[in-house]
């Protein structure tokens, strides 16, 4: 949220004395300043806070894991000279045309509507430049996006906005979305400010209304129906197109197993740090589990069914660095997806817009009011003037640079662990820094052979 979410009559919290520490004032850990501001905002408006991004609370994460580099018992590979492959095939279980990506870092689903057309184009350009895939969102496929994306994943969502068989057949993969990490069990939301004529037309909605989209699919519920639904999509696409099933991480062991049994080629698991364009803050911060906790459960389900590496696992939610990529893959993921990080690479929360973020009551590094459509960086907006600030070619180049860095960083770690392919990374290569991370990731606490609960 921002202080502009509170009516002007409310006191601004920066009107406090400068020397809080000197006065010996004690801040409550329970009622910290952000919490107090939340209560004041709720009291002033009577509406829950809606914002973008994923969970901001601190949860056990990849930062709590370390790699054991090669030494006496394992040989490292020479950087730059010895090969460390990064490619990944997605969807070869049942589909006759699986995706073959050059890097395992893919772009997560984000809608045209939530994002500007320029931002969607930039995502396509950046992803295509490095040979990876990008994904549509709750709002259909735009020609800009299809045109600029070498590998395009078409999301199949409860709302079915813009869903049509022509685009379905044009897609390189279909992702049936059950949920996302920021809001497992939640539907979509796009506030009136962003429902322009084009967005409204694509979604068959009146211009300017608040769009509420359903949280359950309209024509199937549960795994038995899903199996039939997947069968229908395969029949429509003549069994050519890979079919993913995306789940928000809450019960990933069961959900992954059921997705496999329903016939998915690929399972996408999104942890609670995964972003959203607009969701209630209470939902983002209190529903779902961390990415770190989700991966081993999903991998266990795949292994028990004998399909690990046959049904590929894509993990998302808080991937920022090549180390995160390598850690996710060492825990058993076949690929990862980035959303928030990709937007930052495009130019989101850029300090050069500091003055404008300030005018919106936020700051560079904190801006999360994606629902308002007033993004100074021109990414989470439908305003023509703001959108035009984002040059899709330059932004696409920045994203490509970032994707290359993620890939090279992951390779650096894999070589240090003696692996000739990122997929050869394994849990054995990891230790945990904290008991919590050790228990969740199911790798030993550093310096011990202890995994709590195992």
């Amino acid at each position, binding site marked *: 949220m921002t202080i502009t979410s509170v009516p002007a009559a409310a006191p601004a919290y920066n009107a406090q004395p400068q020397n809080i520490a000197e006065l010996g004032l004690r801040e409550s850990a329970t009622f910290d300043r952000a919490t107090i501001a939340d209560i004041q905002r709720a009291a002033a*408006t*009577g*509406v829950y806070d809606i914002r973008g991004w994923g969970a901001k609370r601190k949860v056990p994460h990849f930062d709590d894991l370390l790699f054991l580099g090669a030494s006496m018992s394992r040989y490292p590979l020479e950087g730059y000279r010895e090969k460390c492959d990064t490619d990944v095939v997605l969807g070869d279980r049942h589909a006759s045309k699986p995706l073959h990506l050059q890097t395992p870092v893919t772009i997560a689903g984000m809608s045209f509507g939530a994002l500007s057309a320029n931002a969607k184009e930039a995502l396509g350009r950046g992803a295509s430049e490095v040979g990876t895939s990008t994904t549509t969102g709750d709002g259909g496929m735009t020609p800009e996006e299809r045109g600029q994306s070498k590998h395009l994943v078409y999301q199949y969502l409860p*709302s*079915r906005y813009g*869903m*049509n*068989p*022509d685009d*379905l*057949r044009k897609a390189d993969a279909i992702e049936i979305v059950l949920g996302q990490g920021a809001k497992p069990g939640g539907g979509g939301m796009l506030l*009136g400010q962003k429902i322009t004529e084009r967005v409204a037309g694509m*979604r*068959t*909605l*009146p211009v300017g*209304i*608040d769009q*509420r989209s*359903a949280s359950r699919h*309209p*024509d*199937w519920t549960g795994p038995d*129906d899903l199996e*039939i*639904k997947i*069968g*229908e999509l395969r*029949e*429509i*696409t*003549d*069994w050519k197109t890979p079919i993913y099933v995306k789940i928000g991480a809450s019960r990933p062991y069961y959900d992954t197993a059921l997705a496999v049994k329903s016939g998915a080629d690929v399972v996408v698991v999104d942890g609670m740090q995964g972003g959203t364009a607009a969701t209630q803050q209470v939902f983002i911060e209190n529903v779902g589990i961390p990415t770190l906790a989700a991966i081993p459960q999903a991998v266990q389900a795949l292994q028990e069914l004998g399909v690990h590496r046959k049904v590929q696992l894509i993990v998302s939610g808080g991937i920022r660095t090549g180390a995160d990529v390598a850690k996710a893959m060492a825990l058993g993921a076949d690929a990862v997806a980035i959303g928030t990080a990709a937007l930052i690479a495009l130019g989101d929360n850029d300090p050069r817009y500091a003055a404008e973020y300030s005018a919106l009551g936020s700051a560079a590094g904190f801006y999360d009011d994606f629902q308002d459509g007033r993004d100074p960086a021109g990414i989470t907006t439908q305003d023509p003037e703001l959108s035009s600030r984002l040059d899709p070619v330059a932004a696409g180049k920045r994203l490509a640079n970032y994707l290359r860095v993620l890939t090279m960083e992951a390779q650096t770690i894999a070589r240090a662990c003696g692996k000739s392919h990122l997929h050869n990374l394994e849990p054995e290569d990891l230790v945990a820094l904290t008991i919590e991370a050790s228990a969740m990731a199911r790798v030993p606490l550093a310096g011990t052979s202890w995994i709590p609960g195992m």
Partner: protein
Amino acid sequence: MVTLTAPETFSPTIGTAAAAADPTVLDLAASPVRELNQAVHNAVDGESWAVINPGGKHSLAVGINADIQVTIEGHAGYYAAGMHQKGDVTINGNAGVGLAENIMSGRVHVTGDASQSAAATGHGGLVVIDGNAGARCGISMKGVDIVVGGNIGHMSAFMAQAGRLVVCGDAGDALGDSIYEARIYVKGTVASLGADCIEKPLKEEHLAELAELLAAAGRTDNPADFKRYGSARNLYHFHVDNSTSY
């Protein structure tokens, strides 16, 4: 948005004047569903297909994108004529969940009953159900026209965005809950209306479009016997005073 087909160009059974040529018969007791769908995907305009022994199988005649006629002689399972784009599909029997889901255009006709979520998210075209339809008929409809000869179940036209739903019998509970711009016509009783759905006056323009829809479905009901329902548009913008409606 919708091209209506005159009723006289439509024939519910094989062997009458509708088919330009003798239909190619596909026996699903002998062939897999895959064969049927590949055949209709490869078909060219004007072809005619008759499917026998459908046995309630799922995903029959899905993704048709050519102006062809398909007649299914018997019951169909889930998603019959799903994502239909062109031509006519007739089911001489009952249809399972998600009949003609996401239909774009063309026409789908069921002579018996349809299960829940009939014509869900349909963007265009005409779906005719001579019998009853289950729950969630026309859920999230986006431009499709639906004519049901009998009754419809609860939560029908939930979040209906565009298109017309005509019910010649009764409607179940929570009709048109959270409806956007779709129009609903019901001849019989409505058990209850959903959030933000209200009865609206039946004006000349509505009588005219209703007459057209009924004729297209081959029905003789009198448009003046229907009532019209649609959105009160109170939930289009979130307001704290409406919080109990959600």
